């Protein structure tokens, strides 16, 4: 397995493994109900990572995963530069930088979590997490359309384009749903469901590149 493939796999499994493990730990320790948040919205992602000792796992796992997201974006940049017959247009280059910024936002949002909820800087956390979701979606959409542009020009971009389109459109659907839920001041449970699904879809987008990168590896070109 190449380094970019490992990064794609680990980005998904580490981030979601962390969510699922902290959720499970919360159920065992009695800080959260026994439920499937993707269906019932019984708990938000943030809430799984607030109390200790789940917080230790959550911070360690998610900040580590965010670093891998950043490396994933560098891999994507290197890959696009390598496969594109012409240099990627400026929006694509800036989108990769934006992808890195979105991961940094999530690092900040995760680092400020602490068990004493009253002193937790909620604004920093909420803004950081929201920016991660919004910027990631914008960047993933732009990259997907750039890949389609390359595919139409006959460039070998791998086999994940259809999956990427499905993931991106599903994310836009959930984002619109979230906006509607905010406007109608819906119950938090519905918002939690949307949050869990959006996180899953973003993670799957990172994972989707693994099969494209099987021959994209570190090589001494000297």
């Amino acid at each position, binding site marked *: 397995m190449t380094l970019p493939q490992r990064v794609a796999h680990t980005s998904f499994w580490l981030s979601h493994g962390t969510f699922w493990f902290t959720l499970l730990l919360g159920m065992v320790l009695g800080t959260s109900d026994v439920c499937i948040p993707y269906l019932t919205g019984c708990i938000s992602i943030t809430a799984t990572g607030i109390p200790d000792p789940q917080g230790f796992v959550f*911070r360690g796992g998610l900040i580590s995963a965010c670093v891998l997201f950043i490396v994933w974006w560098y891999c994507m940049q290197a890959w696009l530069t390598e496969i594109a017959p012409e240099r990627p247009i400026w929006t694509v280059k800036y989108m990769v930088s934006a992808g890195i910024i979105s991961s940094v936002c999530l690092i900040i949002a995760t680092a400020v979590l602490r068990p004493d909820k009253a002193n937790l800087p909620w604004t920093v956390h909420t803004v950081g997490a929201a920016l991660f979701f919004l910027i990631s979606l914008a960047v993933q959409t732009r990259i997907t359309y750039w890949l389609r542009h390359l595919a139409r020009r006959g460039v070998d971009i791998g086999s994940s384009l259809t999956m990427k389109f499905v993931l991106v459109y599903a994310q836009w659907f959930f984002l619109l749903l979230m906006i509607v839920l905010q406007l109608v001041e819906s119950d938090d449970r519905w918002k939690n469901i949307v949050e869990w699904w959006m996180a899953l879809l973003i993670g799957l987008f990172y994972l989707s590149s693994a099969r494209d990168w099987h021959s994209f590896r570190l090589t001494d070109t000297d």
Partner: protein
Amino acid sequence: MTLPQRIALVAVVLPFLTMAASYGLSVMDGHLPLCIPYLEGCTTITATGIYYPAAYIFRAGMISAAVVFILWWYCVRAWLESVGHPQHHPWIHRIVTFAVIASMLLVASIAVLGEHMEPSSEHRFLWRFHTVTAGLFFLVTSVCQILMTWRMRQLQAALSIKFSRIAGKQILAVLQLLLLAAFMIILLLGLKSDGVEEIFEWWLASFSALYFYTTFHDWRDFRLTRRERQQAQEVAL
């Protein structure tokens, strides 16, 4: 700049920036004294990451740095197996495995830090966990860096590595070895006094971080590419 070069650069810059920022914030908030910890041993690295808001920066920066260290070790393995006559080197696999585990211990060590560990008398388990994992990280990482340098020196000709590419690594490996040896002697002879452990900790962490930078120039032509595949296709044609 290639991806491995970025990793080597971030592996040295990120820990130094994080320690400096969190120490500065802790001093400004009055939690730590203003001093030169490298000379006076007035504080530990851990202490800079206990109090909020410095702890936010410390955990974000150091956990990120630990993941970068893992990536650096992965690049080392891939690089050493691609230079000279590409072949499988079991020794580097073993060293990298230990070093990666050590970096994972650093993640665990930092993840538990925060104001919730105060007062320390009521959270002895967390403190012991942090001390053991952080100590193992320092020790194993230094030993792995020393062993890597030693083996690279032995296999210099086989790996086709120039002397200049090992010189910096050798200096930092020797300095780490001397620090570890001196610390062991002080412990064994019971000469330990206030601040000695802290001074060793700061210097060892710095040498270890600087070591990551020594591959920056080695990796100028070490990049992510599909060239291997292209070359194979050209040969096939």
